[in-house]
């Protein structure tokens, strides 16, 4: 506390810790002192009121995030517990036992596994035990466990390639999540439509409607909003999804059309290889860098190649297992 004579201005009051505590507590703490101060020095009342007003104004606009504390704490706890603990020698024996059990489990899984594979240049529709449908793009494989589709047991499928999912909604319980394992990425779903790409350790998820949760390794999960797309890069996930500029880029293949959105020819060549198993060669390497935007019919390879020739103004020659662009 300073000598009362020292309190000359608003600044003097606001910078005083004792006064500050009184004001911040809505005149709760130290109230007696400051009331009697005002009685004693009526000349300072106006300044005190001004100081209090400024303090109140400054206190406003504080948006509270206290409601998020519990959720965030649970997330932190999960992250703490996920940290691997150092193995101890006595754990070795236990580890071996677990490994043995795992390999037994693995063979059990092999026996119970069901899978559908689409060939080059062909789509395949799969209806899963829960009524969900999956349209497999060419050269893709979907697998699942035969006897694990009862309500409350969780629904797990594995995708290698590309597919459009239409997932049946069972309940809002986490046990009824539909989980797609795509390489290192897990996509958790309640009921929704989305496109998932998983080739060469690259994943890309485009959400058409509903909501999906993506997780990878130990990274924090990310929730996708309809119209958003997320692509991974070398086994790591970006922090944020982005709005898809051309949604049909991810879904038009289900209608036998290919959409390009500023795609360069080497990307298109990779798509042809993924879907038709044909290598593409460029006679002039400059062609590779050309960029195309547009939609072409892709009912079959001949139609696609015809369309590409027109769109790009190039010649495409088919030779055994490869295509030559010139």
């Amino acid at each position, binding site marked *: 506390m300073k000598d009362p004579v020292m309190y000359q201005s*608003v600044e003097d009051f606001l910078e005083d810790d004792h006064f500050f505590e009184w004001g911040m507590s809505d005149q709760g703490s130290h109230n007696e002192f400051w009331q009697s101060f005002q009685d004693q020095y009526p000349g300072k009342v106006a300044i005190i009121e001004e100081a209090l007003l400024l303090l109140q104004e400054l206190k406003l*606009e504080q948006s509270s995030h206290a409601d998020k504390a519990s959720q965030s704490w649970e997330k932190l706890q999960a992250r703490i517990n996920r940290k691997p603990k150092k193995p101890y020698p006595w754990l070795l024996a236990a580890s071996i036992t677990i490994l043995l059990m795992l390999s037994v489990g693995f063979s059990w899984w092999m026996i119970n596994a069901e899978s559908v594979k689409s060939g080059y240049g062909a789509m395949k529709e799969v209806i899963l035990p829960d009524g969900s449908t999956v349209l497999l793009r060419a050269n893709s494989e979907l697998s699942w466990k035969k006897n694990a589709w009862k309500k409350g047991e969780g629904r797990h499928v594995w995708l290698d390639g590309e597919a459009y999912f239409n997932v049946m909604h069972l309940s809002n319980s986490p046990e009824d999540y539909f989980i797609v394992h795509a390489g290192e990425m897990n996509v958790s779903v309640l009921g929704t439509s989305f496109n998932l790409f998983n080739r060469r350790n690259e994943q890309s998820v485009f959400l058409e409607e509903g909501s999906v949760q993506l997780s990878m390794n130990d990274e924090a999960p990310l929730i996708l909003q309809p119209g958003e797309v997320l692509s991974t890069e070398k086994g790591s996930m970006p922090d944020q999804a982005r709005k898809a500029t051309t949604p049909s880029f991810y879904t038009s293949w289900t209608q036998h059309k290919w959409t390009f959105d500023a795609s360069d020819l080497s990307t298109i060549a990779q798509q042809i290889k993924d879907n038709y198993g044909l290598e593409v060669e460029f006679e002039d390497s400059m062609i590779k860098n050309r960029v195309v935007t547009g939609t072409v019919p892709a009912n079959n390879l001949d139609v696609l190649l015809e369309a590409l020739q027109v769109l790009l103004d190039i010649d495409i020659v088919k030779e055994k297992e490869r295509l030559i662009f010139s």
Partner: protein
Amino acid sequence: MEATAEIWDALRAGNVNALEKLFRKYFDGLLSYAIRLSQNEIIGQEVVQEVFLKLWETHKRLPKVSSVPAFLYRAVRNQTIDELRNQQKKSARFVEISNGTLVHPFSIEEDLIARETEVFRRQQLQKAISLLNPLQQEIIFLRFYNQLSYQEIAEILDIKYQTVRNYMSQSIGKLKKKIKK
């Protein structure tokens, strides 16, 4: 209510309940601070998580501190700057790849200034605050929103105690004029 210093000692001894107590006590203020600095709630959330994760992982090496909140706010500040730098590196890499030429992004400090002056525009007072320099604004924020002492603010911002006091005097003087008009 247990004293914060005791909770801190319990954390240093590896008590996870102590971590939770600190988390719940300071979460709101620290998150507000991180969001204010980064202007992004997702980054803010991540920063607070990272700070407490590190706190737990390094609990054996944590020093004795004179003020726990000062330590936490400072950690949040440093982590936010790191996080923004990382994001900047990512986007810089992207700019480089897509254009072939590197567009020089703002420095982190300049960026913080730009972000901070964008805040508090709604009311007259908020306008006045936005005219203060970023350090003055940050001091106002820490003092009036987070109720930290001058000594703690000096520790968080790594500036002299007297500098904090001077800045505060100047700021209040300017704000006072605005509110009178």
